[in-house]
């Protein structure tokens, strides 16, 4: 009985390890690689013969929760929100649907960020390290629900439109006394 229990335990642990490792790994040391582009850009799925290899391959971080949340941070900090907003689009196209002009596969998104696209999408190739591009790519895919459910981030602490009614009174400008709620 004990042996069965041990084996069962080992089996469960192995499965859990396989499931947990990819999602939970936090790799801080990343090789500073050049931005590698898979050419050429394709705007159509029409294609003589078999499909090309490599175009639809997964990104390195598509299953990794920490990298995706880093991607979210970078998406905000590098001002992707400025045009794409939180996925709804505005100045740039929305990212929360699956209609992607330049492809929604990980490599395609990566290439779009690195190279830039006509009509407004700048090229970030020389500015954003490749590793971070992949993190942003992984996050962008969660906006349209293409990434792993278990790894995608929850809400952020930032959807602020106005101060909530029970938060402490905001500071007044210099010189005025802060009032306390009666």
């Amino acid at each position, binding site marked *: 009985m004990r042996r069965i229990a041990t084996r069962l335990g080992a089996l469960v642990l192995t499965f859990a390890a396989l499931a947990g490792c990819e999602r939970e790994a936090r790799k801080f040391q990343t090789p500073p690689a050049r931005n590698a582009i898979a050419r050429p850009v394709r705007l159509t799925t029409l294609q003589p013969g078999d499909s090309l290899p490599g175009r639809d391959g997964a990104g390195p971080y598509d299953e990794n929760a920490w990298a995706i949340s880093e991607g979210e941070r970078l998406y905000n900090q590098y001002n992707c929100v400025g045009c794409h907003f939180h996925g709804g689009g505005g100045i740039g196209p929305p990212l929360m649907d699956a209609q992607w002009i330049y492809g929604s596969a990980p490599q395609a998104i990566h290439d779009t960020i690195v190279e830039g696209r006509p009509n407004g999408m700048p090229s970030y190739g020389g500015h954003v390290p490749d590793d971070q591009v992949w993190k942003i790519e992984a996050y962008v895919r969660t906006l349209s629900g293409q990434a792993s459910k278990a790894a995608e981030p929850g809400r952020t602490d930032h959807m*602020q439109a106005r101060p909530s009614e029970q938060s402490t009174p905001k500071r007044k400008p210099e010189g005025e006394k802060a009032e306390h709620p009666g």
Partner: protein
Amino acid sequence: MSIAEVDDIGQGWAGEDADAEERRRLEKTWKVPSNPLRAWFTNVDHKDLGKRYVVTALVFFVLGGIEAFLMRLQLARPESRLIGPDRYGQLFTVHGSTMMFLFAVPIMLGLGTYLVPLMIGTRNLAFPRLNAFSYWVYLAGGLLLYVGLFTNTGPDAGWFAYVPLSGPGFSPGKRVDIWAQMITFTEISSLAVAVNLITTIFKHRAPGMSLNRIPLYVWSLLVTSFMVVFAMPAVMLSSLMLAMDRLVDTHFFNPAEGGDALLWQHLFWFFGHPEVYIIFIPALGIVSSILSAFTRREVFGYLAMVMSLVATGFIGFGLWVHHMFATGLPQLGTSFFTAASMMIAIPSGIQIFCWTATLWGSRPRLKTPLLYVLGFFFIFVIGGLTGVMLASVPLDLQVHDTFFVVAHFHYVLIGGSVFPLLGGLFFWFPKMTGRRLSEGMGKLSFWLVFIGFNLTFFPMHQLGLDGMPRRIYTYLPETGWGTLNLLATVGAGILGLGLLVFFVNAAQALRHGEAAGNDPWGADTLEWAIASPPPSYNFLRLPTVAGRSALWSRREDQAEVTGLRSDRREVLVTNLLDAEPDHRDVLPGPTIWPFILGLGVAVTFITAIFTPWGVLIGAVPCAVALVAWFWPRGDMDREVVMEKRS
């Protein structure tokens, strides 16, 4: 005559043959299934479950200890690269959570489930199946946390899991979800045990054991159980709110959307501070038990002791804010909590004084359990005094969240709780196993643990004053914290060695320990009146009690309870104040359903980490198990036979 009558004629009334016949029938009725696999899953005996609790909790204690030692190794020298920040975060979080939720509370309550029915003279806890259920839920929570740690999914936001760090924005992945669910698991378990203990203590005491004759150990568990009932819901609620923030995007703790990060701290510490007393109060009971056994005296000032326990239980709820002095709360409010935090030193002080008065000139036998109690005095008094320092707002502002606090609460929790616990395990080991531990190895382990402990934690006071914050995975050489940290690591090694000796001693005693006999220490509570280890039905005939020390005050012709049916699991229910016989009750026997329900609860909480549908999925096995659990069983149902006076 009452149906469960108190036999005034006393021992020897029934002949030896009748005794043997009664014993045979009780053995048959209270039998634990002989197939070990079946016994493992269906057993509802409080002694087996209590031992299981203790052993499981000790396994978690060892795991938590290993984590602590790894952290000490990392901190032994500055800028050490042994463990990275990610792994260190998981280690200290799991260490804290293990020691609080998987070791300290379960072992105290588990020891209680073992001892309370024996001490108050009954055959099992009031709700045997609930007891089994508590164990399974606790085990599931512990396994969940450790499966998490071993798959790199160990929670890493601290055992206090302050939002927003533990929220969805800053703790991606499933790490903190595992922590939050583990909390819910263990709190369900503790609540169930607490309800069980309260009912048992109030209603199943031996005739004659009125409230003012309950052993102090049982009082301590009663107070603890009430604290559990009031404190644990706060943390269950907050961990549920955290899980919902993370899993279904609610905004309880999101300041941007009307939530509040401080709300978490209030809810958490409203539980977190009483938690300390939940761990510590049962240890006070152990101290009283050991002291009275080795001084051969009743503990001095019974009423003062009980009142102190109860006062501690009340005041313990009024000082959670002293964990939050640095958050910038208004001065008037903090003064109130300063006063409350200092006030709690009074009941603690009274207890120390009463114990000293008990020891005074008693020429006690300096056996290992008593050594642990003396160690407790030394360490706990230091911890209590540093606690008074922490209650002062200005001092707290300096030492809060530093190693000074680490030192303080290890002095209180290890000194105040683990030392009595080790003494208690040494003390009751003969009762549980029928074998005696080696006194020589016991003393060796005590001195190693005592010296190692002080070497580890005393320097931390200084480190904290020198500005070393808690929860840092490394520090710079120029801070000058290296020497004392190295000293602490050496101490941790000695402490670990001492604990190793303790466990080796236990393992050896299990195999070739000297037979213990009924009462190896000459102690005064009812459990020492029966065989070691006790039979499954505990008492051949339920005892009656004539004084505070049940055995020392026992007369030659002490009455015993007769008239309970031995062909089904009958126990005597007595009334709350005076423990006069009230009616008989039938307890359920072995059953698989608590295990199935525990499994159902585990499925619910674990799948809920991955999908909100988990709640519905898990509801199915839970509903099935509950229906089966409460299915009427005809004759074996809990038929209550009301007392009829003739």
